[in-house]
């Protein structure tokens, strides 16, 4: 549960940034921690509304599965799909190592 005073610490912001793959700087951490604390203090107001028996809304328009016939349609060519890639090789996306040395 959110703590009473100071919703979010600098360490927490650093942890969240790591989870979100953002290599934030020390200066940013200082700024964001203060700002996010203020924002969280404000949005925590949603907790004041008694809504225990209220169903949540994820989407304003009720969503249903949408089906279409399973037929061939033109899509992007390999060249088009790779056109914006930072690096490509042999018709594929070239990416940095994703597994450790040992794997």
């Amino acid at each position, binding site marked *: 549960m959110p703590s009473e005073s100071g919703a979010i610490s600098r360490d927490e912001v650093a942890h969240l940034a790591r989870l*979100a793959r953002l290599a934030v700087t020390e200066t940013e951490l200082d700024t*964001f921690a203060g700002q996010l604390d203020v924002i969280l203090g404000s949005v925590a107001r949603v907790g004041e509304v008694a809504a225990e028996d209220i169903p949540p809304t994820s989407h304003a328009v009720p969503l249903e599965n949408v089906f279409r016939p399973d037929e061939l349609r033109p899509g992007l060519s390999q060249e088009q799909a790779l056109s*914006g890639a930072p690096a490509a090789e042999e018709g594929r996306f070239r990416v940095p190592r994703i597994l450790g040395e040992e794997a």
Partner: protein
Amino acid sequence: MSLTRLTAAELAEKIASREVSAVEAAQAHLDRIAEVDGEVHAFLHVGTEAALANAALVDEQVAAGTALGPLAGVPLALKDVFTTADMPTTCGSKILEGWRPPYDATVTARLRAAGITILGKTNMDEFAMGSSTEHSAYGPTHNPWDLSRIPGGSGGGSAAALAAFEAPLAIGTDTGGSIRQPAAVTGTVGVKPTYGGVSRYGLVACASSLDQGGPCARTVLDAALLHEVIAGHDPLDSTSIDRPVPSVVEAARIGAQGDLSGLRVGVVKELGGEGYQPGVRASFDAALQRLEKLGAEVVEVSCPHFEYAMAAYYLILPSEVSSNLARFDAMRYGLRVDEGASAEEVMAATREAGFGPEVKRRIILGTYALSSGYYDAYYGQAQKVRTLISRDFSAAFAKADVLVSPTAPTTAFPLGEKVDDPLAMYLNDLATIPTNLAGVAGMSVPSGLAEEDGLPVGLQIMAPALGEAVMYRVGAAFEASRTADEGALVAPEVAR
């Protein structure tokens, strides 16, 4: 009269009757952009060649007697959040600098099919997060009414292009007010259609359950004409509504006759009063009197949960943002900063270099709101509040055909005033956020100038889901009556 001063409807008529060529129309607007955009900075990219090529094609078709859409050859400014295969798409972000999408958004494709000339891509807060365009990585847009002030956001570029007569039509997107608030502060018209009314295919996502593309123009009729071009079911967007598009052009024409008798206009008690600038409140009160004069019955309605809308929005939106923007991973397209040996290190370095502070704040906030231990108290509770806001709307629409409020609590504020205070910036969308949470329709129409600063004020008109026809009718009636008395709002000539 200069071609750039004409409405889209007037220009389209002249093109169709060969009084003016589409090439002349395009060139006049390209010249105007060259003349003033150095100061306004509404555009991130101008596609001169493609614009003139489209215009030439329309002229050929007109000459050949080909049946064309009602806006064929009319120039338009497209928010840089819709993919365009022939132009860069940056979303105002460094992470997409120079990116050329491999396909057109459905909105882009429909504009092309209608023969509309796309002049270029307009500036915006990065990934549509902001109310001032100051969060664009490419520098802010300046309000044509006062170049030292914000043009609103996130779609400030589109609104400023209209106000500066760089285009008679524009496209925006509205997640929490990004079409309506810029319209209000630039004295232009902006419409957020019902959620699902306009396809999101090829619209780079901010918050998927809230994002909605829509038309921007200088008149209600022009917005209606553009609305009918871009709206309608799209099999490529599974949230797109498979129902007929409301007849908004007809509604706007009927509305312009100025009779609103039999209509009930609900004033939302919670959207006004304290926190709203005196000149905004005065303009709103005058608007209510005008609506009554037009025959409408003005009633007060209460939406008690609207006071929690901003809090719910700033939990739901960042949550969706943190998930949606995970796609910018430096692997498939966009920026890559090759620092570090592993994919994870490259991702983190790229996202750090490619995203601006507001985007980072919202990603971190969303990551927090969705994390276990906090989920129920924040995201879960916000979703329940969302239900209560929808119920407030349903109850209000049982008492009134449309709801009204000021669009934004203030007129355009000076650039730099709120950029370092996120919470103050968020308050600009106080009155526009509820419609996004409930998925209903909303528009902003100019209601005059605020007495204290002489800057434009917007009247917000809200209608139930797929209730755009009545919204356009009220908007057009109000506009016709107001301009007959006070004249259209025209920004001062931009200094050269």
